[in-house]
Each structure stands twice: as structure tokens, then as C-alpha cells.
């Protein structure tokens, strides 16, 4: 759905997505990196379990929720991607205390 602009390539940032080793680019947010990897959906909704993905990319819609380094319901569009991050799909509701 998305491809990166033909700018001079940014340095790659390695991270894991649901345990799989993948790469984003320096300057990506987590949500941007997922979109660039072709991951349109990053979570299932808390009530109906419908797949959802990043939409507003500016912290408003809460549709880009992911688990980042073990913490649930992080807004992927507001979290800068860092090397070695463990990103997981948010399955439904967050666990209380996690």
C-alpha cells in the first residue's frame, strides 16, 4: 500500500515484529515502519476483534495501538522506532498491569 520516497536512504533500524527480525528506517515511528513493511493492520479491536491499522498518524485516532517492549496499547504513531525494539500485534484489550 505504501512505499518509501526515493530520498537518500536513511540508516536501517533493526527491530522485531511479533518475534520476526525486520527493519525500519531512522526517523520512522513504529506505525510508519509497520506501514512501510506492508502491515496495514497492527491490532484487533477490544470489543469486536476487528483488525485495525494506523489511520491518523498524529496521535488522535488510537487505531495504531501495538505492544512495545511488553507494554500494551502504545500508540505506534507517537513512538519513535529504536534499534532492538520488540513490537507485537495488540490482540484485543490490553492486560491490566502490562
Amino acid at each position: 500500500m505504501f512505499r518509501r520516497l526515493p530520498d537518500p536512504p536513511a540508516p536501517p533500524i533493526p527491530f522485531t515484529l511479533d518475534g520476526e527480525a525486520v527493519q525500519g528506517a531512522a526517523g520512522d515511528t513504529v506505525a510508519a515502519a509497520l506501514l512501510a513493511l506492508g502491515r496495514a493492520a497492527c491490532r484487533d479491536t477490544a470489543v469486536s476483534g476487528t483488525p485495525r491499522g494506523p489511520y491518523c498518524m498524529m496521535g488522535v485516532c488510537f487505531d495504531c495501538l501495538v505492544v512495545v517492549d511488553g507494554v500494551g496499547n502504545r500508540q505506534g504513531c507517537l513512538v519513535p522506532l529504536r534499534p532492538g525494539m520488540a513490537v507485537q500485534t495488540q490482540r484485543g484489550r490490553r492486560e491490566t498491569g502490562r
Partner: protein
Amino acid sequence: MGLDGGAPGGDAAPMSGISSFDAAVIGGGVVGASVARGLLGAGLSTCILDEGDVAHRASRGNFALVWVQSKGLGMARYGAWTRASSDLWGAFAAGLRAETGVDVAHQRQGGFSLCLSEEELEKRRASLLRMHNQPGWIPYPWEVLDRAALLPEFPGLGPEVVGGLFCPLDGHVNSLKLFRALHISFAARGGAYLPERPVSAITPLSAGGFRIETPRGAVEAGKVVLAAGIANARLAPMVGLSAPVRPQRGQVLVTEKTAPFLRRPVVTLRQADEGGIMIGDSAEEAGLDERVGLGVLSVLADRAVRMFPAIASLNVVRSWAALRVMSQDGFPIYDASGAPGAFLATCHSGVTLAAAHDALLAPMIARGALDADMAPFGAWRFDVPQVA
């Protein structure tokens, strides 16, 4: 309040003739809609005259408990009335679901009050003892639990919680779904919902019944029921009644939706059916000011985290304030006018009492008089010379 969204000429009342109903309910919140649904169930053609979206709408801000354990100190009849509604709630919810398809998520598996100090626990225990020792009290089970007894229910209980109270009659519901279900049911039963109609005057008609004036035209009705919350104070004198009620602000926080962690509600904290954790139970005298304030919200959040440390990491997604409809003694007012046909219903527990309003109060109104055992709820009790 300032913003009047009503467009002149839009959605105008019929120009020819005045709509006429067996009963007109003024106020379309949970209280008004519950009574109106019950009136339709009793066979009366009924309209609801409501304000618009900017009304002070306690029904959209409440905490959604169906709560028994702390209700009635000072008026045994209120304890019995609350208990009766709680007993009716299961059938009420099932009826709404069958009729509207909306599951209001009613649960009645008991509820807790948790205390963060021995003094707090002793105060609550003493208050419940006094309540249950009142003359005319109809007993029901409740118990005081120490910390050890609470742990099986709440494995993540904070270290400061010394004990609490439990009553098996308590429960909760999704009150937004309740509000919606009541209106769907009202429409399905043939009721006429008339919004943007703040009432300016109520005049008795010589042939019986009332003419009710609104900016969008008048309606006539054989019976009129005042269920307009805080506005009842202004409306009641129009039909020779009195409703000394004032707004009392309550503030609520809700967290993001999380996996189930609370099986049963605590009076200050509950997990809604869809997973959000609601934190509330503040009370302030602030007039019609519906703003939230960090002072109260931080106290609510602090107490909640001391009770359940695991929720500290959750994000709060919304906070809001709503205005309880409070009488001088905190109990409901149900009254009927000397000239027949005008009734008053006002309370701060419209969710808990919804089942009683639908199944008990509305049939009384349809019959034309409140039952004799409703006398303790009359506004006569605020008239000192009359009481003395």
C-alpha cells in the same frame, strides 16, 4: 446553556391542531424514559418533552451502578424501594433486550466498598449498622470483610486496603446502553419523543388535563410527569408541587479498555462490560459548573491506584463531570398534585431505580395516584411547620 442549536423553522411542530396524549413526561433522561416506557406499558399514549443535546444530562455521565448497600440511612422506605428496584432489574434488563435487541450488560453478583484505613472501615460499618437497625427496615444480607477475606476476590489488592463491605444485592450495568435501550423501547411502543422542547409553562385545563407550552408548540395531556432532573425545581411550582433539588457535581475517570480484572464492582471503581475501568464517586457543591478539575480527579486516581496498584500503568482516556440531582436529604421525591394528574419524580439514582420507575411507579401514575406507602417520598418532608 448558551448554545441553542435549534434552527428556526426546522423540525417545526404541526401547525394545525395541538397534539394530545394521555400522558406527557417532561424530561427524556433515564428517569423520564423509564417512567414513559412504563406508562406506554400501562396502555397510555405518551410523549416525552425533552431538551436538546446541551441539556444537563446526568444520564450520560453517571457511574452505572445498580447499588443497594449504602442506600436508606435516614429513610427506611428508600432502602426498601432501592431493594425492590434491584430485585426487578434482572427482568427489566431481559425485557429491554427482548424488545430492543440491546444487551444492557446488567450484572448482579454483589458489590464491595473498600477502605484504606481502620477508621474508614469502622465509620462505614457503623453507618450500615445504624441503617439496618432503623425501625421498619426490611433486612437483607451484608457483611464486613477483613483484608484476608478480600484477597480471594481481589488478588492484586493494594497493601493499604484494610477491609471492606460486601452486599450480594449490588450490581452494575452499561448505563449508556440502558439509555439507548429505553428510547428504542419507548419508540417501539409507539411513544412520541419530542426534543428541543424546554417547557416554559404548564396550565391546568378546565376539562381536566394540562396544556404544556414549549418553543416548538404546545401539547395537551391528561397527565403530566415532571422528570426533568434539576429543572424540576423550576417546573414543580407550575403544577402546585415543590421540588427542592440542587445540582451536585460528580467526576469520573475512565481508562483504556483492558482485559477483565475485576469480577464485581467496587462502589468507587468498576470495570465496564467492554473493559474500561471507571473511577468515580466524588461529590461537590459547584452549581451548574460541569467542568472537571485536576484536584478531584487526582484524588480519585490516587485512591484507585492504592486499592489496585496494577492499574497505575493504564492510560486514562476520558474524564468528565455530571450533575447529580440532589434533594436536601439525598432521597428521591415522588409526589402528586392536589388537582389530579400532575406527578413528580426526581432522584440521583436513576439507573438503580429505573426498574422500579418502569414497573412500579409508572403503573401508579397510570392509575392516577401514588400508593399510600409512597408517602415518605413526598416533598412535604421539607416543610418544617407541616412536619412539626
